[in-house]
């Protein structure tokens, strides 16, 4: 009998896939396609893996092979293009294949649940619809009433084709009824709706951008949509998506954080009268699976999601859009450390569709790709309509008295802007909590986390000290553990403290504080945003949650409380991040017809970053920063990978990395190795961390080296004592 071998990606930290014999009741081999799930015995347990290929023979002797238990799907759950993408990701990021392929699947499918994929085939009236129909509803919409009448006569439902014999296909009204819950789908054919509402008119730059992308819809092309804040990037996305939908294809849109972009989502929902699938981490496993299936079978014409949505299967992709492409949340920071933007580009190329990367502050990597001709540059240099770019002012706070971090000139400007009717102001400070640490006023003792090399943050309202790195929590010390003094003081400012200070200055105005602490409860962020939109809260204070995407038309002043934060970071990307943050925060000011201004408090008014950014803008800053990167031989002019190791003992990570370095020396050719060195925060959550940086001037060379090196790391003796990981194209060097 012809017995083949199944090669299967099984979730495990091992750098290999596994060969199995087919299960006893195996379907015919020709029906066994890569991308179906297979339940297999693995060690003493069972695991769900993905079939990668069917082989004639294995390198292992047949007696060593175990039979798989069960084929879980009749047809591939993961379409071939996604299998290719995962395969590419596994090779590029040098990550265990089982974990990479597991990332592609929603968690319920990973656990072996039935995929139960459904597609809309027709419609059926619901009990609610029938009752309302009997009452004579809907009275005003005659077309809807007509549709209900037809469906009410056939309570078991009708296929699309049957329905068409009675009325001209009226998708719009059917969908209205469906949204009201009066009718339901009859398990399903792909349905991509093409109804769009009258859009805003575009300005010349927007029209040119849309035209350029429209012409490229038939093949792969990467565009960098480089538009200042308020320049109407979303409108460009909408036009492109409308065109793509009109061609009967799907759009995939990646955004940094769904919770932070409710306005973008609302605009898509308003303007595109189609089914959206929204994918993000706050969904339940079930909701996630449903959204995934809607995307896969094509009933969702538009898929909007965060990082991991790059792996959403699409039955007919037409375009990929990445909003705020510079955002660091696109890089996964643990496990399979992929960059969703970079994977999306690979995916677009494989699918032969265009990809649009939008940002007001493009990543230096993306601008570099423009320079070397890989991306096409589309500029939106001015704001839409009458709104103007805000003026930026540097406030030198040296020698100034600071009241809880706020200088008198800043307070005066706040007062002036708040004196205007409906005027709103926004203060930005990227530090949540009350104060970053507690100090003894008598002896200078500072509160430290006992598990990390970090201070404990004071949280006033909770009356707790919390470590923002490991989550350790304790009550606030009543007296100094070193000298016994009760005169302990909160040192430095967090958003909570600024909020209190502003309450004293403006006791009659509502204040909205937006950070992770104030928005923890479900719906609380939405409530705060509503209050702001309705003008009930006129002072906004927040962390970077405020910097992204929101549109507050009445905000005319944005204050950056601590402009020095980030000017002197240890990471070579600190300057880039700071510049992006300043521009993004500044972009919240004066977005309607009101002129906005931005004030940056700093002790370093002459800092070159601030000077270039303010007098010449982000593009000039980026050019200068790229020049520095080139001289310093840093990415994007070189390629990096970071090997991290951690353990409870201080010595083990270093010993492992030493061995890894020695191994590398035997393989390396044109590879620079830096380290091992302790991580910038060496101890975290009770574990010591060290790292070894690999750098070279050619991407190919880096990957040829990693191909040989990573596989052999597991054979090192010291590997047993540490937890290690490899980060290709690391975004943070710690």
């Amino acid at each position, binding site marked *: 009998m012809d017995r083949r071998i199944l090669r299967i990606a099984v979730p495990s930290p091992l750098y290999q896939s596994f060969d199995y014999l087919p299960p006893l009741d195996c379907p015919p081999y020709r029906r066994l396609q890569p991308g179906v799930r297979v339940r297999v015995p693995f060690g003493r347990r069972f695991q769900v893996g993905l079939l990668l290929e069917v082989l004639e023979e294995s390198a292992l002797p047949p007696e060593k092979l175990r039979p798989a238990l069960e084929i879980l799907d009749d047809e591939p759950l993961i379409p071939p293009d996604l299998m290719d993408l995962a395969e590419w990701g596994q090779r590029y990021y040098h990550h265990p294949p089982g974990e990479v392929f597991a990332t592609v699947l929603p968690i319920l499918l990973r656990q072996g649940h039935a995929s139960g994929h459904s597609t809309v085939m027709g419609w059926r009236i619901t009990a609610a619809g029938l009752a309302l129909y009997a009452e004579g509803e809907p009275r005003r919409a005659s077309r809807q009433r007509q549709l209900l009448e037809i469906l009410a006569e056939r309570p078991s439902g009708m296929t699309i084709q049957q329905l068409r014999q009675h009325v001209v296909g009226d998708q719009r009204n059917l969908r209205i009824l469906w949204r009201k819950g009066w009718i339901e789908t009859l398990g399903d054919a792909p349905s991509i709706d093409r109804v769009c509402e009258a859009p805003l008119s575009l300005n010349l730059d927007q029209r040119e951008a849309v035209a350029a992308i429209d012409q490229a819809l038939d093949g792969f092309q990467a565009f960098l949509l480089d538009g200042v804040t308020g320049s109407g990037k979303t409108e460009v996305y909408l036009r492109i998506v409308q065109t793509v939908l009109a061609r009967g294809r799907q759009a995939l849109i990646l955004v940094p954080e769904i919770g932070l972009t409710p306005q973008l989502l609302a605009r898509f929902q308003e303007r595109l009268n189609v089914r959206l699938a929204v994918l993000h981490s706050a969904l339940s496993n079930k909701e996630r699976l449903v959204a995934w299936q809607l995307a896969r079978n094509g009933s969702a014409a538009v898929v909007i999601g965060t990082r991991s949505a790059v792996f959403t299967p699409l039955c007919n992709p037409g375009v990929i859009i990445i909003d705020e492409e510079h955002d660091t949340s696109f890089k996964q920071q643990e496990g399979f450390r992929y960059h969703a933007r970079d994977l999306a580009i690979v995916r677009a190329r494989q699918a032969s569709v265009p990809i649009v990367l939008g940002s007001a502050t493009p990543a230096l990597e993306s601008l570099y790709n423009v320079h070397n001709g890989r991306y096409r540059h589309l500029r939106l240099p001015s704001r839409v309509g009458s709104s103007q770019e805000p003026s930026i002012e540097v406030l030198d706070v040296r020698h100034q008295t600071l009241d809880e971090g706020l200088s008198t000139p800043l307070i005066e400007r706040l007062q002036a802007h708040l004196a205007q009717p409906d005027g709103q102001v926004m203060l930005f400070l990227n530090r949540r909590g009350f104060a970053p640490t507690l100090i003894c006023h*008598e002896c200078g003792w500072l509160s430290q986390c006992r598990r990390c090399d970090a201070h404990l943050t004071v949280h*006033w309202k909770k009356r707790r000290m919390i470590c923002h790195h490991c989550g350790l929590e304790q009550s606030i010390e009543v007296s100094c553990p070193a000298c016994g003094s009760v005169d*302990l003081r909160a040192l430095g400012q967090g958003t909570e403290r600024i909020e209190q200070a502003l309450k004293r200055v403006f006791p009659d105005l509502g204040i909205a504080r937006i950070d992770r602490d104030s928005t923890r409860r479900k719906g609380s962020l939405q409530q705060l945003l509503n209050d702001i939109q309705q003008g009930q809260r006129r002072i906004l204070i927040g962390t970077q949650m405020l910097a992204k995407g929101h549109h507050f038309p009445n905000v005319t002043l944005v204050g950056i409380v601590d402009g020095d934060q980030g000017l002197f970071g240890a990471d070579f990307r600190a300057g880039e991040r700071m510049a992006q943050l300043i521009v993004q925060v500044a972009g919240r000011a004066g977005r309607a017809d009101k002129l906005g201004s931005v004030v940056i408090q700093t002790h370093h008014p002459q800092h070159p970053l601030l000077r270039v950014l303010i007098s010449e803008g982000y593009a000039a800053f980026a050019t200068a920063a790229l020049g520095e990167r080139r001289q310093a031989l840093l990415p994007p002019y070189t390629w990096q990978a970071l090997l991290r190791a951690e353990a409870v003992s201080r010595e083990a990570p270093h010993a492992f990395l030493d061995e890894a370095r020695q191994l590398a020396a035997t393989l390396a050719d044109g590879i620079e190795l830096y380290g091992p060195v302790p991580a910038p925060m060496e101890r975290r959550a009770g574990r010591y961390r060290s790292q070894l940086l690999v750098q070279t001037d050619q991407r190919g060379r880096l990957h040829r080296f990693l191909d040989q090196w990573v596989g052999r790391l597991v054979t090192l003796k010291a590997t047993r004592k540490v937890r290690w990981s490899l980060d290709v194209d690391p975004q943070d060097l710690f």
Partner: protein
Amino acid sequence: MSGEPLAENALLIAGHVLETAQIRYSPAGLPIARFSLEHRSRQMEAGIEREARCRIPVLACGEALVRRVRLLSAGAPVRVEGFLARSDHRQGEARLVLHTQHIELLENP
């Protein structure tokens, strides 16, 4: 408390409260009151009577003491008993502050 050698630190002083105490709370929620005491008396020195005048900062920490300090308005005559300590950890001239252990409102003379 001061059984050990070189551990003695006690001051008993009476005077007028200069101005109402400033009260703040430590992050743990403990109230801390601070005021200045104006002292003026006649003392004997080398067999000769002389005037003694000084102004000394006083700290009172904790709910029980601060409750009493709240009742003191400017000019109130008080007797304070406590110990001396440096007022902060900064370098330079060491300023002393009286940490209250007992405080008593006196009858107006």
